[in-house]
């Protein structure tokens, strides 16, 4: 006992061979009134809480608290980030759309609860604890193998070494020992401490460098750890390349390419204006037209953009403008041939007929639809069969310019139809206009009977159609009257 006088006695421990003898001993110790007791076992022994009188743990409540914190954190985070601070509209859903926030809320609830269970358990158990006086006994190593230990702490109010020993002996306890202070040092060995310190110091250095770089300016280009697409692999002019047989990175023009400003068409053809005359009368306008049509910034061959500002004056279509001194081309440069008319018919059908109608009467499908839905902003397209649009009042060049640049609500078609096709449309429009005013004499003698015959058939059909419509209307009226 003399050696124990110098060191503090922690308690007394005994070793048991089986679960049953341990449980029996636990009950005896509990019944003797000891409170500060514990059993040490290699696996959880069921029923030992009762045998020792251990109270249930508060851990589930800690976990509940953590879980609720997780749910609330997730919801607040998502609502703040996606609905308040940086509102996203996704699939037209409300800013706070809870169903979409559920998965993350669930995951964070589980995560926080698990942290609560894991760390809470260790904290309640007072672990990690690397210095434990029980471990001084080498026999105690078998607690994690196949032996069971019972311990009574010296700080228990009823602690009395001899009576505890008695209980141990009666219940089959072996190797009964007092547990004394561990006299070995519980300090971390110096080399480990040093190494640890060095690792921490070394890991701070890169962070400090990054911090310094972020707050200071430097004249040298930034150091690229990752390229971040800062350097384009595209070749510069005059560089070589292995991709092509000729070894050049620059490629020659595709055959047929027309460079800007090098169009082969003449200006009159592209604008519908006699440019020479215009230059004499209105040099600034001529200059602008040239620049827009053939200059380096303007479109070529009418393939992009507009060649001149849209004419906004609606009077131009109804009567010749007194101030219109533009020397328009009066003759279609393509002339009139069956081929030109067929081309014009094709493009008129594609681009013009949707508004102006197949016959040019101004009642195309779009117009019909707009009237049906009573569109308030709709301006009906002009009929092409009015005196003011005939070639004596509205020269071919002007018609070409209108197709190219648009008028009122009508957009310019220079961007969609090539110049020669626009001229073909002009020719076709003239043909349509002529069809309403042609006299029988203008038909070649040889074809006259054939055409007159066809005309008669058409007249007959129109008449029958009108009668049928009338009959249908009458019948509808009659049934309506009957139902009343």
């Amino acid at each position, binding site marked *: 006992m003399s050696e124990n006088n110098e060191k503090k006695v922690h308690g007394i421990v005994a070793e048991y*061979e089986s679960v049953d003898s341990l449980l029996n001993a636990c009950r005896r110790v509990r019944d003797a009134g000891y409170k500060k007791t*514990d*059993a*040490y*076992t*290699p*696996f*959880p*022994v069921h029923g*030992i*809480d009762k045998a020792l009188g*251990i109270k249930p*743990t508060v*851990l*589930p409540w800690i*976990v509940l608290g953590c879980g609720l914190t997780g749910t609330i954190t997730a919801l607040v*985070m*998502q609502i703040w*980030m*996606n609905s308040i601070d*940086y509102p*996203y509209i*996704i*699939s037209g*859903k409300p800013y706070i*759309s809870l169903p*979409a*926030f559920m*998965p*993350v809320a*669930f*995951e*964070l609830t*589980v*995560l926080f*609860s*698990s*942290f609560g*269970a*894991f760390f*809470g*358990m*260790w904290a309640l*158990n007072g*672990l*990690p*604890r*690397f*210095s*434990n006086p029980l471990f001084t006994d080498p026999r105690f*190593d*078998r*607690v*994690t*193998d*196949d032996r069971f*230990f019972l311990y009574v702490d010296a700080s228990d109010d009823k602690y009395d070494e001899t009576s505890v020993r008695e209980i141990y002996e009666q219940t089959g306890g072996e190797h009964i020992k007092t547990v004394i202070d561990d006299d070995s040092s519980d300090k971390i060995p110096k080399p480990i401490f040093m190494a640890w310190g060095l690792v921490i110091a070394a890991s701070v250095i890169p962070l400090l460098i990054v911090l310094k770089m972020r707050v200071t300016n430097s004249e040298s280009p930034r150091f690229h*750890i*990752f390229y*971040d697409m800062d350097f384009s692999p595209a070749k510069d002019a005059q560089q070589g390349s292995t991709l092509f047989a000729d070894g050049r990175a620059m490629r020659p023009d595709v055959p047929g390419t027309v460079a800007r400003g090098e169009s082969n068409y003449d200006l009159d053809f592209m604008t519908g204006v006699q440019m020479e005359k215009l230059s004499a009368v209105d040099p600034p306008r001529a200059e602008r037209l040239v620049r827009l049509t053939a200059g380096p910034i303007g479109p070529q061959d009418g393939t992009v953009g507009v060649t001149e500002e849209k004419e906004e004056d609606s009077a131009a279509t109804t009567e010749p403008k007194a101030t219109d001194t533009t020397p328009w081309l009066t003759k279609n440069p393509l002339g009139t041939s069956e081929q030109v008319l067929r081309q014009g018919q094709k493009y008129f059908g594609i681009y013009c007929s949707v508004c102006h109608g197949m016959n040019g009467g101004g009642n195309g499908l779009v117009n019909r639809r707009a009237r049906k839905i009573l569109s308030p902003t709709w301006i009906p397209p002009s009929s092409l069969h009015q005196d003011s649009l005939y070639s004596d009042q509205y020269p071919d060049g002007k018609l070409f310019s209108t197709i190219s640049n648009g008028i009122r609500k009508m957009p310019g078609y220079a961007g969609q139809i090539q110049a020669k096709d626009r001229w073909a449309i002009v020719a076709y429009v003239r043909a349509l206009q002529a069809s309403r005013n042609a006299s029988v004499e203008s038909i070649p003698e040889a074809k006259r009977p054939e055409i007159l015959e066809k005309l008669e058939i058409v007249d007959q059909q129109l008449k029958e159609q009108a009668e049928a419509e009338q009959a249908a209307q009458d019948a509808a009226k009659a049934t309506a009257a009957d139902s009343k």
Partner: protein
Amino acid sequence: MSLAIPNGLDNSVEQPGQRAPLVLGDTTYHDITESVCQVAERKPSTGWVIGFLISFALLQWMTVCILYLIYTGVGVWGNRAPIFWGWPIVNFVFWVGIGHAGTLISAILFLFRQEWRTSINRAAEAMTIFAVACAGTFPGIHVGRAWLAYWLAPYPSLNLWMWPQFRSPLLWDVFAVSTYGTVSLLFWYMGMVPDLATFRDRSKNKFRRMAYGILSLGWSGSSRHWMRYEKAYALLAAFAAPLVLSVHTIVSFDFAVSQVPGWHTTIFPPYFVAGAIFSGFAMVLTLMIPARKMLGLEHLITIRHLDNMCKIILATGSIVGLAYGTEFFIAWYGQVQEEQFAFMNRAFGPYWWAYWTMISCNVISPQLFWIKKFRTTPWIIVIVSIFVNIGMWFERFVIVITSLSRDYLPSAWAYFSPTWVDWSMLIGSFGLFFTLFLLFCRLMPVINMAETKSTLAKQYHMSHSDKH
């Protein structure tokens, strides 16, 4: 303290009124300690060294490929318009699926009091964590600029001035997989602490004692500690059970929430979860059967354990087969032209070979397990499990590649061809997985000794009370 159960006993036979023993042989608590600890304490076998060197070499090759990818760009993969997801996402879903068995065994079987889980749960949990590590690699490098992968996290960024989009399943996925990885790691580590204490108390040299001493946190086996420990374990199991179901559900949302034909179906969550458990158990069996033989653990991981796992494979495999059929039925019944095309294209289009590999491996091969002989013959189980693993990889291939390669825009259709980098990364991910697993076998307790001992205690208690 010993049990007179002969070593050769077939514990897969049901005896009415009696529970089949889960620990065989004349085993004591100390025998369990010995048989598990000797795995880590003896010198590594030649087989282990060779296996480790091969796995480690593959892992290094994968690392080289990742560096090459980061240096060059994602063009080194076969991912081309319109198949931008490619093999990285196939591999991601494959590995996440494998990672489902561990937590299922640990958590769900624990909650259902399936005692046979005790000797397999540790290795299965380890597999989960390693599989999640493999899985996490792929989306990480698939983001293109991998060094900016941290943009996925909701942190107040001074570069972006914006937050992640929380209505996207891809972000849910980040939370689901990282939560799953974290919780699985906690669960695994917590389960290991008492066994690490055994390692600590048995270790002869000072370094081992210190290392295991730190890892075991000063565990003393106190009954008060055990009480809180068991409570925490039950709570973690209760969270991990819905978590394991949620993870693959959310992975399936990555597909199901999109509009792509063949993906946009409500069947995906249950179908993916069943497939994940299916593939996870197959991987557990593939590894456990050689391991129990090589590590001498046949009396702890018994034929009954294998039999039970085969039954789960049979059940989940049949669910997966039913899901394949249901997809076709719904495509027909739904009368959406694109859906119908997507499924006909899967079975009879340019990827027919992948589809029928999937069907034969996943639906047909597990049907062998209706016959008890096949469920109790280890080498047949290994072969079927490997087929299931192959089949489940092809399932993800079929889902990802066939749907993307032919969607709504026929002018963009294309055929996917993997590059050597794709192949290297698939094989290299197995290198990562096996490197970690082999290290685990050497350094950590491969079987939960404490739980197996308590199973033995119950077994002893029962056979003891029978005598009265």
